[in-house]
């Protein structure tokens, strides 16, 4: 699913968190979104998912204007995201966390009587637990999981909605090298038609995964291009790469 933002601006009082941001991401692309802390990356995700209304500008999903739509409606169009700080269901078990996501996708959460669908849900949950490497932790409550396990569950929750557009907000933050590899492999297993937007500070991951990179600084989109072009861009080096070195 392709996504574009048209002149999106978000103001908090006098401060502009995003200023006239226009992005165009075609279907199936793996796009990285980078920039220093406070550049507006998470705010942009919030605006795309509907968690925050833009002060002005429009959001288009698959060509349709979704700016007035609420979060859950956009999610049903095939939009999923992960959160920078894991947004789990802390007192529910790992399996129940995933079951909620699967039911939400199948739209069977409304049922009061146990139905045959529940068996399908349970089967999908166990296969996802295995794929995410969480099978042994199925009955643990989410808040008792280690950080890396929570991040894996965080990603798996988003994948369980079988998204056509997936926004990943620093999915690798705080992960060990091994966990990082597992997460990258899990993301690689996504079907090629899924559009991926990745906010990530680890530039090795960014340059390895992304086909194109967009750079935000102080709410302004300052560059947009292939990894090679971004590496060569002077302004990017100044505001971002320069500092990273």
């Amino acid at each position, binding site marked *: 699913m392709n996504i574009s933002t048209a002149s999106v601006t978000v103001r908090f009082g006098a401060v502009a968190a995003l200023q006239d941001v226009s992005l165009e991401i075609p279907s199936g692309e793996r796009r990285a979104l980078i920039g220093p802390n406070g550049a507006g990356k998470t705010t942009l995700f919030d605006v795309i998912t509907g968690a925050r209304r833009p002060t002005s500008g429009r959001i288009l999903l698959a060509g349709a204007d979704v700016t007035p739509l*609420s979060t859950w409606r956009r999610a049903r169009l095939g939009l999923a995201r992960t959160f920078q700080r894991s*947004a*789990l269901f802390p007192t*529910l078990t790992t399996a129940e966390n995933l079951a909620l996501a699967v*039911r939400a996708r199948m739209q069977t959460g409304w049922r*009061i009587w*146990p139905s045959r669908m529940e068996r399908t849900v349970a089967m999908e949950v166990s296969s996802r637990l295995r794929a995410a490497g969480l099978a042994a932790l199925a009955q643990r409550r989410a808040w008792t999981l280690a950080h890396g396990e929570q991040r894996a569950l965080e990603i798996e929750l988003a994948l369980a909605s079988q998204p056509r557009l997936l926004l990943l907000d620093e999915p690798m933050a705080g992960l060990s090298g091994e966990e990082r590899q597992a997460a990258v492999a899990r993301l690689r297993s996504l079907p090629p038609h899924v559009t991926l937007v990745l906010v990530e500070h680890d530039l090795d991951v960014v340059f390895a995964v992304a086909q194109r990179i967009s750079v935000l600084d102080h709410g302004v989109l300052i560059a947009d291009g292939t990894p090679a072009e971004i590496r060569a861009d002077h302004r990017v080096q100044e505001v971002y790469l320069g500092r990273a070195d």
Partner: protein
Amino acid sequence: MTGLRRARLQRRPLGLLALLLFLISVPAWAPNRFWINVASQALIFAIFAMSLDLLLGYGGMPSFGHAAFFAAGAYACALWALHRSPDLLPLLLVGLAAGAGLALIGALALRARGIFFLMLTLAFAQMVWSVLSNNQLAGTLGGDIGLIGVPRPVLPYVPAVNLFQAANFYFLTLVVAVAVYLALAAIVASPFGRTLEGIRENEGRMQSLGTFTFRYRLAAFVIAGALAGLAGMLSASFNFSATPASAFWTTSGLAMIAVIVGGSRSLLGPAVGAMLVVVLQLGLSSLPTPGLAEHWQLLLGAVFVAFVLFLPGGLHGLVRGRAA
């Protein structure tokens, strides 16, 4: 399998059976009618507390106005029994419908969360209370006296079984209470109940997974309101009256106490908590010693404060060994 469907009924059949047998046996060993009546009131309050647990425990919606729906059921049934007929089945439906209907109006409060939800529901219930106790409407609602002379319901098919008899009425409340427990247990174990818990835990995440969360919160609010109305119906029948005090905020507060003392998110816990509150209240007031008799509130309040401070998991948490 991943053990998703651990129906609560299967998890502790023995304790449940014991409790049920105990409740069935009450009229057999209760020393006199007074104590059977205490038991009836305890069960009515237990129904009320269980309905609140759906909102508070499972839905994470701290309603401080739940008494409004209780009163709606009580008044609607009092009016129905006084002016239409005392047949039991329509009365049960009227109680449910009145609670649900008022809940649809009170659902405005669902726009808020947390402490603001609490205050909105409180304001809503006080509004209901002030209308009920308004003497300008004494002609229909009885003003601050309420509606009195409400007849006991008449059983269908077996009108000979007289519900004026304390034990008979007790068994009626027991049947209703068991039905409400089973219904709520099924609801909280169902996909709907699970989704409701997901919304309590993290509403934003449920939305970004594609769930229209308002619909679930509304449904829970209306179901809880309907069951509270059912409790109100039993209360009006039992007391032969419906009074405005039943809508006052302290009634809601007592139900909250019952839920917390019993342990929220367990249905049975709040039911037991409610029974304790009622037995404490009526039991102490029946004691011949004047010292303790009038001070059930003191004892209840102190017990409650102790629970809040030291046992946030309530009785249920104590039994299941997860007091923290």
